[in-house]
């Protein structure tokens, strides 16, 4: 069992947790992920390593509650424990001094883009960051992002905070600004956002790294469920990625594969809500 030692509520649906997992912390690097299973009936879900503390043996995860497993995880409190926690998985981000780079984080993608921006900055890059969310309540870590960026642009879909636009708009402006000479772009967020970021950078031929969030089971190359189509054939996201050249990804295939279990996800959520209500009723009746 792996104990939750700290929990922070970043928004109604976004939670941060520090989890005790020395075997993961000892080697964790930016860009890698873990696989967590809450209890004996749980599924294995992948989450990015948002931060780590090797000395204390801690891994920080940040997740958005989108379905049964993430909702259930969000209900756990410090002192509770999860049944499995495996990692670090995938390849770390390739950090060098590239010159001027743009880091784009959408929604919960702000969490995994933060350590990457931090390391890029430390490696001597000029870092421009763009973070976006549907609305103000879903934004988090603005201060942290500011601290590791030379420039930070914040936007929301509904204009409740920062610029009222999607992240690709400021990105296009920056790319179109001849004085800036952007050498690389990183984008992490919903698949659809990463697809549009890749489309925005393509005409400028700026190398664009995306971190793919396919459905996974083992995370070690054993099932092939996470496979993604690139220009030159299929890859396993868990062992070959999770970062890939966004210009090579078959986005339609990726998006359709993410939908495959939609109906089952709905059934799982329904069954879980029902169980929670029953438990609440029992509690209430005591």
């Amino acid at each position, binding site marked *: 069992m792996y104990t939750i030692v700290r929990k922070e509520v970043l928004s109604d649906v976004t939670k941060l947790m520090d989890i005790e997992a020395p*075997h*993961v912390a*000892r*080697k964790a690097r930016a860009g890698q992920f873990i696989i967590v*299973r809450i209890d004996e*009936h*749980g*599924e*294995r879900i992948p989450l990015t390593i948002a931060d780590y503390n090797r000395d204390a043996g801690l891994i920080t995860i940040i997740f958005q509650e989108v379905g*049964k*497993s993430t909702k259930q995880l969000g209900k756990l409190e410090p002192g509770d424990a999860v*049944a*499995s*926690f*495996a*990692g*670090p*998985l995938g390849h770390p981000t390739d950090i060098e001094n590239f010159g001027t780079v743009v880091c784009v984080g959408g929604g919960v993608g702000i969490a995994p883009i933060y350590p990457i921006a931090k390391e890029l900055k430390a490696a001597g890059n000029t870092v421009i960051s763009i973070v976006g969310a549907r609305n103000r309540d879903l934004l988090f870590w603005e201060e942290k992002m500011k601290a590791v960026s030379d420039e930070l642009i914040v936007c929301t879909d509904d204009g409740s905070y920062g610029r009222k636009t999607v992240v690709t708009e400021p990105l296009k402006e920056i790319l179109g600004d001849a004085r800036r000479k952007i050498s690389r772009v990183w984008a992490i967020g919903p698949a659809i956002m990463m697809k549009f970021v890749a489309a925005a950078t393509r005409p400028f031929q700026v190398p664009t790294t995306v971190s793919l969030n396919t459905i996974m*089971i*083992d995370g*070690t*190359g*054993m*099932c*092939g*469920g996470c*496979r*993604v*189509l690139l220009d030159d054939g*299929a890859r396993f996201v868990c*062992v070959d990625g999770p970062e890939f050249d966004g210009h090579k990804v*078959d986005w*339609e*295939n990726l998006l*359709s*594969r993410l*939908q*495959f*279990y939609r109906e*089952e*996800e709905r*059934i*799982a959520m329904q*069954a879980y809500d029902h169980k929670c209500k029953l438990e609440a009723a029992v509690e209430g009746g005591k």
Partner: protein
Amino acid sequence: MAELNQKERMKIKRHDMPNQDQVVRRGNFEEVALGYTEETARIEAERCLQCKEPKCTRGCPVGVMIPQFIKALREGDMVKAVEWMKVKNNLPAICGRVCPQEVQCEGSCILTKKGEAVAIGRLERFVGDYELANRTCPLVKAPRTGKRVAVVGSGPAGLTCAVDLGRQGHEITMFESLHGPGGVLVYGIPEFRLPKGVVHGEISYAVECLGIDIKTDHIIGRSFTLEELLADYDAVFLGTGAGLPSFMRIPGINLNGVMSANEFLTRVNLMKAYKFPEFDTPVKIGKKVAVVGGGNVAMDAVRCSLRLQALQARQSGGEPGEAHIVYRRSADEIPARTEEYHHAREEGVIFDLLTNPIEIIGDDKGRVKTLRCVKMELGEPDASGRRKPVTIPGSEFEMEMDTVIMALGTSPNPLVFVDADGLERTRHGTAVADNETGRTKKQRVWAGGDIVTGAATVISAMGAGKRAATDMNNFLKGEAPWA
């Protein structure tokens, strides 16, 4: 029973093992083969001629003392039977269920020529189940040696190695990347063929008696590297198997509804998707399933498909659907255990033999709709001695399918080779290790099981684990230094 003579023994017919009804079992995941009763086991044991030079033993990859355990069994001395069994095989309840006996012990039994072999596998299972229930042959740990051994991978190879070394008094730590131990025995082979209770029973017993520490969620090559293990332990055994799936190189493999048998079986067996939503992991199975391949993995996948289809039909009404095996050779070449092939047929699996897929076609939502295939015929024998299937020109045809499961063989996972300088690998990705001792090209590192042989059998993996344990023990005692 009075002592029989040879003739009388040979008159006894081989006893079938009772099975769950073929219609009923299609709708559940409970064990199909129900095992012998004490009485049938005794009578079956009477069939053995007690050969002076038993061919059966030579047919078994680990040389189980077959006539000896059978003799004890028919004399009613179960304690003795278990003892004989365990001289060579720690896990008879498992091997009795999953060994391909027809090409190993039973295939070599003298009676095969004159009729039917002694049902060695079923008798072995009977002995194994007795031991599971009664524990007459306790595992005892020798005085501590102070030596520390790391065993990577908790499949049959790793488990056997760990148990044998644990008994010698060494301190054993096992590292397993998944959340539970057992390897293919738990994630691959389904409940209806090998109940997980049997596997967990054996593992927890060994852990208890020998104090083996199993660290799950530990991926060697990621959480720790081989070099790091070598710094902490006196010796390392690699039993990480051959878990990497392969996909056919045909158009359409990334459509929704195409998956590897590994993914499908892991969802169903390890994650218990057949109990969704009681368990969180779902599995999607269509009304028309094609499993490509003809080995044990393919049979397991197709029979799981049938069961899921039946469960679905029961819940939502309607027809259960069809499950096909699509295999490019003929029935004679099917590499699966004979028993599984027969069970699959009884359960209603459709066999499309001498058939090879060339394309998977999707609908406008990116879901599998059609499997395009060609017909094959058998040509000259190939390197494996089997006749090579060749395409019949102009024989293309299409089958409507909504799920395609690829069961085409697997190769070793390369993760364990990360930061492992000197650990030599073949072109096929398998580790180079001595067949007798299990020694690799890297000092203090042994390997055995599927990681060395490529996908093989449970008993050959156990045999390799056992041989390596013997050599490792000698090494640790200073009797067999590394040259």
